[in-house]
Structure formats: C-alpha cells, structure tokens
C-alpha cells in the first residue's frame, strides 16, 4: 500500500483513536483486495451504527463511559471501545428496520422499535443524514459523473455507476462506516476507468417499454452475466428514472451486476465502441420473445394460488411518480377486505406525496404508505399472508426465499387490480 502523509497520520492516531481504527480496517481491506492506494471520497451511503435485534442483544451492556460498543466493535471491527467523532465527510443512512409511524403495522415489537430509534439517534448525532432509503438518489444524494463514492445497497450502487457515471464498488457495512470517519476507500474495481468497460453484449430484439418490461430485462441480464459488465443494445425507447431503477435492481439481484451500459442512454456509452473500450465482448446474449417469456415464468414460478392476500409496491422505494400512479389507479375504489396493500418509499418522497394528496388517496382506499424499509428487509408481512403480488423483480427474487410466501409478479396496474379484487387474474402472456 502506498499511503499519503494524511493517511499515515490517521493510521498513527493523529486524528484520534476511532479514525486510527477506521484507517487500520481500511488498510486490511485494501490489502485483501490487492489495492495499492486509496481514493478520496466525500459521498458515503451506509448503515452506520445500526443494529439488528441479534447485535443489540450481543452488545447489550458493553457500552461504557458514554462510548458506543456497536460502532466501535462492529462497524470498525475494533477490539477496543473508542470515542466516535462526527462524520468527516457527507454520509447518509440507507434503509432501516421499521417505519417510524407504522411500525406496529409491520409487527415490530415495541422494544425492538425503541432500539431502532436509539440507533438512528446515534447516527443523527454524528452528522449522518437519515435518508432511510435504498434510493438515496431520489432523496437528495445525487453524485456527479466521475465522483468517487462509498455506497452500500446493490440497487443504489448499480444506479450510481451506470446511470449517474459516479464511481463506487458495492461496499459493506464496515467499509462505509470507516469511510465516514476518514473520507477514504480502496482504489480498486469500479473506481478505475479501465475496470468500467463492458464485457458482455446483450442484443434486445423484443419491445421493452413498461416498468415491468425493464424489470424483466434486468433480471435476464443479471442471470446471464452474473457480476460482469453488460452492454445492452437494441431499439428501445429511452427509459426514464423509474425504469432504470427497476432494471438495475433486478440485474443486481439475479446476478451481481454493479455497472451496465445502455447504448445511447447511459453516460459512458454514447456508442457500443465507447461502452466496450479496449475490451472484446466475451459473449453475446439475445433477449427475444422466448427469453422474455422464460423470465416471466421464472418470476412467477412459485405462485399457483390466485387468492392474493397482500400486494407490496415500492421496491426499490417508490418515486413520486409511482405514488401518483398508484393514487390514480386507487382513486374512488377500495382495497379488498381479503387483501392488504403496502407501498414503501423514502421519507423525502413520502413528505412530497402527502403534500400532493397522493398518500391521502391511497390511505382512503385502504392502502398504507410506509417509509424506511420493505417487507424483505424488515421480514414483515400482514399476519396470515400466503400469497403476495409484486411489481418488482427484485422483491419477487427475495420475498419467497426469505419469508416462504408465494409471489405473483406483474405490472403495477395488475398489482393494484389484485389489491382491489383479492385475486390474481392476469393471463400468462
């Protein structure tokens, strides 16, 4: 490792013990990667100081002299309890475990909810912006092209790299918390220009238009290329932010895609040649009618019961326009008494949706708009749920595996219709 004088000083403890522990952890991490230096970052998105019930319990009684055991021992992987200073660089908290208004709806126990509030207060008191969303880019943290970031949350990482042209690897809990205190992250992988070129080509030969279409294409792409960098070419209409959000979330769930190029759309792919740079495509995959059908069937593979108990929208967290769409579809109607409708979003988008009356329309129809979390993350379903309907390929990937329910996948309109009738009545296309 080549360390700058500032980095050496931090490692020697000149910036205090916590910064020293953070730097030591980053050096261990960089050496494990085989990185030779750090880049500076002023944009961190993580979950500093947060704790699952297991961690709460594990570290109970280990705080001493006002020092925080969870941040010291877990976030910094330190063997010593140290005093944690405020964030050195702008840092934001991603999604968390419970909605502050509707935690009881989620079935969260009061003591667990109180502990989440305490952990949030800890982060806030260290100058961490409490965005509490998997979509920081819809809630005020929008990095610029070329900006080095240290982000967690695979759906946010793929959006930052691909759509915004910012540079981040998929960081973890400990590396983002260490970056928060040092403004450093290993110069490895997607921070380096030569690692951002495409490796595989996807030829789209079927119309891809709706949000659902883009989610399905993303799920196909992730399955094909795993953690490589796909270049997607084809005659598709320019997708806007919601379509890109669903595409990326799906590609980072079925595979580990952290970056993609949409030819003519994303900033590092004005042409196919630019997207591949010096690379020769390792393989080309065609996405035609048969492939689209296969993805649809995969995403609906475990559903057979048409009686839908639960409809969940907002994975990744709903954009304002998605709440407008839901409100429009629900205006003057009612969610079936046999069904629950939960829509997840960020606090920022929720506040604007309240001002615009969307939340009232959805609530009047019997739906609930929640913030901070989602069903998969909070492991929360309405009591007795057996069959869910989802408009997100990512949620359809995780929810049956995590909570053992059946899941139908379809369009937002299909899902709202299922919420109104309590039935999945979509014909297999």
């Amino acid at each position, binding site marked *: 490792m080549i360390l700058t004088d500032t980095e050496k000083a931090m490692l020697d403890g000149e910036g205090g013990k916590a910064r020293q522990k953070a730097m030591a*952890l980053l050096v*261990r*991490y960089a050496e*494990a*990667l*085989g990185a030779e230096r750090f880049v500076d970052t002023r944009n961190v998105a993580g979950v500093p100081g947060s704790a*699952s019930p*297991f*961690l709460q319990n*594990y570290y109970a009684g280990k705080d001493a002299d006002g020092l925080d055991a969870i941040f010291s021992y*877990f976030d910094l*992987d330190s063997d010593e309890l140290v005093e944690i200073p405020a964030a050195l660089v702008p840092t934001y908290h991603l999604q968390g475990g419970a909605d502050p208004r509707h935690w009881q709806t989620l079935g969260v126990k009061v003591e667990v909810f109180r502990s989440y509030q305490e952990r949030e207060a800890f982060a806030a008191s260290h100058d961490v912006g409490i965005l509490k969303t998997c979509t920081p880019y819809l809630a005020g943290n929008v990095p610029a092209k070329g900006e080095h970031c240290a982000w*967690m*949350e*695979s759906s946010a*990482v793929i959006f930052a790299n691909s759509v915004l042209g910012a540079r981040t*690897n*998929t*960081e*973890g*809990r*400990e*590396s983002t918390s260490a970056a928060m205190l040092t403004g450093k992250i*290993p110069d*490895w*992988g997607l921070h380096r220009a030569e690692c951002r070129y495409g490796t595989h080509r996807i030829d789209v030969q079927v119309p891809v238009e709706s949000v659902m279409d883009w989610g399905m294409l993303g799920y196909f792409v992730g399955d094909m290329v*795993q*953690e490589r960098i796909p270049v997607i070419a084809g005659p598709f209409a320019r997708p806007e932010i919601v379509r890109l959000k669903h595409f990326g979330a799906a590609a980072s*769930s079925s*595979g*580990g895609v952290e970056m993609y190029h949409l030819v003519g759309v994303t900033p590092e792919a004005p042409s196919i040649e630019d997207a591949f740079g010096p690379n020769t495509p390792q393989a080309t995959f065609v996405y035609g009618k048969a492939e689209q059908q296969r993805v649809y069937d995969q995403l609906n593979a475990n559903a057979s019961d048409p009686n839908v108990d639960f409809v969940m929208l907002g994975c990744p967290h709903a954009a304002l326009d998605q709440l407008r769409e839901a409100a429009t579809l629900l205006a003057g109607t009612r969610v079936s008494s046999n069904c629950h409708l939960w829509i997840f979003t960020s606090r920022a988008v929720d506040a604007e949706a309240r001002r615009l009356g969307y939340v009232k329309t959805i609530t009047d129809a019997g739906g609930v708009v929640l913030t901070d979390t989602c069903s*998969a993350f909070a492991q929360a379903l309405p009591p007795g749920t057996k069959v869910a309907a989802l408009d997100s390929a990512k949620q359809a990937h*995780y929810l*049956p*595996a*995590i909570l053992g329910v059946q899941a139908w996948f379809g369009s937002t309109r299909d899902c709202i219709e299922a919420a109104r009738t309590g039935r999945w009545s979509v014909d297999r296309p």
Partner: protein
Amino acid sequence: MKATSTSVTIVLRGRGVVGGRAEGEALVTRQTIPGWGGVNPQQGAITETRHELRGQSFKDKVLVFRGAKGSSGWSAMYHTARLAGTAPRALVFNEMTTKVALGAVVMRVPSVTDLDQDPLEVIETGDWVRVDGDLGVVEIVKKVEK
C-alpha cells in the same frame, strides 16, 4: 483383506488475503455464496432457495468456493457469524470482489486466493485442508484407500 488407508498431500500456492494459519475439513461449492437474504449467521447455514449448499453448515469448515454474490450486506452477515461462533475456520476462493475481501477481513480467518491450480478442481468436500494466509499456501490432505 482389511482395507487400510494412507494419504497424499497436495500443495497449492497463491496470494494471502487475510493472514494466519488454520486447518479443518473442506466444504466445497462451485457456486458463489450469498450474504444477506441467503444465509443464517446464527446457525452458520446457507438458506438460499436454489443453492447447492442449502441447509448445510459452514461452521468450523474450510470453505472452498467460487466467490461472493448478492447483497451489500455480505460482510455484516459473516461478521455476525464470527460473533455467533459459526464462522468457517478458513477461506479458499477464486474470484476477488469487495464483498468477499471485506467479509474475510472482518471474519478474521486465514484466507487465500489466486491459486496456481483451481481449488475447486483439486479440493473435495471432506478433504483435510491447511491454510496459511501469511504465505498464501494451501495444503490438501487426501485419504487414499489401499
């Protein structure tokens, strides 16, 4: 005649990722290993629906695998496994990513990658494996039936 067994030792050389030495029984998968949403750290078990190791425990094993996949919660899950006492004793893997690098560091177990032969071809579940993360050496002891 009664069968007797003897053993042969194979040595692979690569790059140490996390230092230290450990040994144990190999648990091998050609698949990438999930983190959040696909593993139960309190039980040390893989839970992902379609994974070939589903339901199997990696506690005290030398985990031999292709690489890490899935959510950015990978390191925190295996870090939690360390606290719960269910972590593997050592890691041997092929594909370097930020997830597996950070996970190995906070699990604090000897880890080696970039080996001169594919460990997935050489090591079988049940082999006894010694991992030296300082030197980047992996020794595999195979029982041979006579």
